[in-house]
């Protein structure tokens, strides 16, 4: 583990990305402590302060660093709260998708035969649809709210995990240590849980980091399209969407700053994920 970290730190870009991602996560967690305003508290919003440019000192007496949006929300506060929601959605959806996908993939690999063929063709079929489209249809059908959104995200993403887990498990299943466990013989349950699954984890973790990033951007896309969360709990996507209509009138900040926050987060997570992948890939190791 120590070696893993020191090796990770050798890639300066990945290290910087990891620090930025961590900082964003910390800021998002501590949002109520560092923001001047609770953007969800509708009572604290003043329409007089709406659509003010960055640096404007509002009626409450503090400066709005990044300006305010159409409802008079302080954008800095709104972005941090938005990040909170985005990260929550991404992580929860990612974790559920990982569990579901890994279970399906490993079981398919272990059972083999027709069950495996059926499950994996189903996964292939799903992977051939654009994830956005699938999530959009599901989110629209299930209605607004966190639960339905997570369901939509999971449905769009578990297939990647299943594919990866299946590939890894098929490779592991043929290895001698699995054969040794089977010849002992250990019960199938133990072979899958204690031997095959733990050895499939590294590739799954790599997929997980990338998928969390893509869950966040997918959530933003859905919110932007208006099928995600209700407008009272603006996530980053909704902030961007809300500001979009003001772009042409010169009030760029309402869309641009949430957009920048989103890009930094997603690029950061992807850079970290790439480095982890490179480090876990024995072929790239020296």
């Amino acid at each position, binding site marked *: 583990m120590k070696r893993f970290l020191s090796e990770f730190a050798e890639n300066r870009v990945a290290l910087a990305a990891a620090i930025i991602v961590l900082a964003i996560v910390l800021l998002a967690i501590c949002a109520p402590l560092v923001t001047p305003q609770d953007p969800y508290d509708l009572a604290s919003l003043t329409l007089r302060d709406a659509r003010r440019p960055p640096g404007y000192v509002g009626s409450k007496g503090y400066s709005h660093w990044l300006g305010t949006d159409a409802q008079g929300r302080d954008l800095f506060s709104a972005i941090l709260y938005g990040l909170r929601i985005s990260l929550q959605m991404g992580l929860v959806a990612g974790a559920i998708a990982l569990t579901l996908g890994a279970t399906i993939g490993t079981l398919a690999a272990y059972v083999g035969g027709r069950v495996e063929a059926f499950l994996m063709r189903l996964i292939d079929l799903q992977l051939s649809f654009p994830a956005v489209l699938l999530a959009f249809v599901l989110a629209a059908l299930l209605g607004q709210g966190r639960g339905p959104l997570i369901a939509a995200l999971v449905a769009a993403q578990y297939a990647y995990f299943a594919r990866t887990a299946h590939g890894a498990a098929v490779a592991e299943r043929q*290895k*001698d*240590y699995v*054969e*040794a*466990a*089977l*010849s*002992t*013989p*250990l*019960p199938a349950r*133990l072979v899958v849980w*204690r*031997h095959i699954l*733990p*050895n499939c984890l590294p590739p799954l973790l790599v997929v997980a980091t990338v998928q969390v990033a893509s869950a966040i951007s997918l959530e933003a896309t859905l919110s932007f399209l208006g099928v995600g969360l209700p407008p009272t709990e603006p996530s980053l996507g909704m902030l961007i969407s809300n500001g979009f209509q003001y772009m042409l009138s010169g009030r760029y900040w309402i869309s641009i700053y949430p957009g920048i926050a989103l890009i930094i987060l997603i690029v950061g997570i992807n850079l970290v994920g790439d480095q982890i992948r490179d480090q876990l890939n024995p072929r790239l190791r020296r």
Partner: protein
Amino acid sequence: MNAIVSLRGVSKEFGRPATLWQRIGQATGWGEGPPILRALQEVDLSLMPGEALGLVGESGCGKSTLGRVVAGIHAPSRGTALVQGKAPMQGGRKATTRVQMVFQDPFASLDPRMRIGRTLAEGPRAHGLLRAGEEEAAIARWLEQVGLSADYAERFPHQMSGGQRQRVAIARALAMQPDVLVCDEPVASLDVSIQAQVINLFLRLRRELALSMLFISHDLAVVRHLCDRVAVMYLGRIVETGPAAQVYAAPRHPYTRALLESVPKLSVDGQPARIQPIRGELPSPLRPPPGCAFHARCPRAIPRCREERPTLQPISAAREVACHRPEDA
């Protein structure tokens, strides 16, 4: 004395299920069915209690498959494989744990993410061979049995050398208190000096534990050193069996002779030994030749060898050979 392992007419075939096209082809007679790999064909073999039986042959001769049938990893396609009168993997818990296996590559046969102690205790725990609270002492005992100190229990496989890992793999098999140990090329991937250590370990374990061993190897010298009896395989069949000393000194099957003569001998004085290779190559087990599988490479072949397959026949007290023209005693 009754055999502890007995194989009667065991065949093992590997093949994919036929695809639709192949089925249509077969049904209409226009095409061939799916290719079938005949790894084992009508093998009769028995292992006596306390005996070390060496199984030799070249790659693809089916010796590893035979070991896996005995260990219960593969079920035979035809014929019966019995361990103490019961089929492995079907004879209930007792019969299934009676045979344990040691694999060739200790870098692959240990779970890389599991500590050694847990690897060792896992099997006994799953089968209730280990009482609660005894575990630590038992692990230390097992490690000591193969010449490793107790603190190896906390290590991961990648923190150990090849020889140490192979000792762990042997300890894992012994922890199940087996009667039969199937060893598939257990020293082939080890260095010469480490090989000698592991061979000595096997010799000691045989003396101390009265184990029966099926020892699979392509290395004729190792088999000669470790085994009482030897069975020579060629293309899925046993072509010769007998006491190791007799078979090595006076092989009766031309293939056994050719195999023995192929091994380069260490010549410490005089001219380097002239190597006398067998002609030709191993036929594919996907399409075994008719008659005796060895006839195309055999210097003693007669027309009959091409047409009629020789069966394994007793030729003297303890020896059997499958050949129409066995060499003179």
